[in-house]
């Protein structure tokens, strides 16, 4: 198995790659039911993370994740900045120096709870939570297959289409938000797939 610095480098690279290659798609999704900046925001944030990769990945897991979260908070802006920032920062706060799989599953749930606290949203309101929570539940249910995890994320993102948005800018659309995939759900699924891909590769 790769050493953990290398693993963090791979994760940073993979996440940047997926966000950059899907930035336009995310922006298009946000143009349909938001304000058309989600891809631009995510790209700006993960580019900042990647620009700082050398110093960030040298830190141990908790510090690395907290720093990634803080970078996202300070660079992404919009709604997704504080939310993804909170997700990563909380992961960092919750994880021990040498996390086990169980630690990861627990920390992921804690991070989601923090995101809910920050955004005051519930599942079923057409947000990133509608991907994060089903994925957490599958993990908690004991299925830790990485492909299945990625698949779950994408299926959950797909499943935001029929939902009427209650939170986020899409909520201003009311019924007209129905039929469109939530941009933050899509980006969450992409991030999960990217992370799963790296973990699978090094497993």
């Amino acid at each position: 198995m790769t050493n953990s610095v290398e693993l963090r480098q791979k994760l940073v690279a993979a996440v940047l790659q997926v966000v950059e290659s899907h930035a336009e798609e995310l922006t298009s999704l946000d143009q349909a039911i938001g304000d058309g900046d989600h891809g631009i925001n995510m790209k700006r944030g993960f580019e900042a993370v990647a620009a700082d990769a050398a110093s960030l990945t040298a830190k141990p897991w908790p510090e690395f994740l907290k720093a990634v979260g803080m970078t996202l908070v300070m660079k992404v802006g919009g709604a997704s900045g504080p939310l993804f920032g909170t997700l990563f920062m909380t992961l960092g706060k919750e994880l021990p120096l040498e996390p086990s799989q169980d630690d990861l599953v627990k920390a992921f749930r804690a991070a989601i709870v923090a995101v809910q606290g920050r955004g005051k949203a519930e599942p079923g309101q057409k947000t990133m939570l509608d991907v994060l929570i089903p994925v957490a539940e599958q993990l908690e249910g004991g299925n830790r297959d990485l492909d299945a995890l990625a698949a779950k994320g994408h299926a959950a993102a797909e499943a935001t289409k029929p939902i009427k948005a209650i939170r986020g800018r899409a909520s201003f659309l009311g019924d007209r938000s129905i039929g469109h995939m939530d941009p933050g759900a899509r980006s969450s699924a992409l991030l999960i797939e990217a992370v799963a891909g790296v973990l699978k590769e090094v497993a």
Partner: protein
Amino acid sequence: MKKLINAVDTVLSETLDGFAAAHADIVELGEERKFLRRKALKKGKVALISGGGSGHEPLHGGFVGHGMLDAACPGQVFTSPTPDQMLAAAQAVDTGGGVLFIVKNYEGDVMNFAMAAEMAGDMIGSPIATIITDDDVAVETSTYSTGRRGVAGTMIVERLVGAAAEQGQDINALQAYGKAVNARTRSMGVALTSCTVPAAGKPTFTLADNEMEMGVGIHGEPGRRRVKLASADDIAAEMMGAITGDLAPKPGQQAVLLVNGFGGTPSMELYIMCNAARKILAGQKVLVARCLVGSYVTSLEMAGCSLTLALVEDGDLALWDSPVHTAALRWKM
């Protein structure tokens, strides 16, 4: 995308540089362009800080100066600014009286300002308080949703609270006053065309040649419904109907009327809308005590406008009329 720009990536920085140079008598640009601040601070005065995504100019940077804001934090186009910006601004303009954030009700803005307030800790010695503006009646409120958006009425809150701050009111009084002004201010908008976020490169939405978006937000977010283009009188009637339906002004009530262009609509059309709105208000015996017509809270080059009505109470008009000197609003100085 047809814009007078050099590159998509430098739109914001060049705008800020141009703005700071043009108004160097009143404002200064903070380090790394994190904020625009008032040049001359007043010791002990509560510092008013606002901010939000760019693309709404002159909001908020155009309202930095005597009688309005002490600093404004510009986010990327249509993207709320980040907490480091509010923190840097607060450090720069806090003179001991406390810091009051004026935040438009969007989840992004609310969360980023909230994180800044939480992170402030020891960095800012003074207390921090927040006013959230949510004047857009186009959004139907519901306990589950995010609530109404903060739109053009925000500038009325900034003006009145700014004037009160100048007179030395303390942070609690200002926060209470700002909330009260927000509570009696309502807006609604209509778009005739879309706008193009520079980094996106294509219009946020599309409208057919005979369509308009009624109840549009200031980011080109959709509103109540997409309908056929109507006459100025009919559009004003729907917008004012929603506003006064919600505010329920009594006959004889005084108000400030703001007819706000979204960026691509010329002055003539705004005055036609002003004329239409005033006729409606006259019919309801609402007295327009002050009237502003111009592009103050915009959505890039979107064509369209919003109407805002702010009911005024004792003392409001004196504050409104008190000296103000900002790039976009100036009188008596």
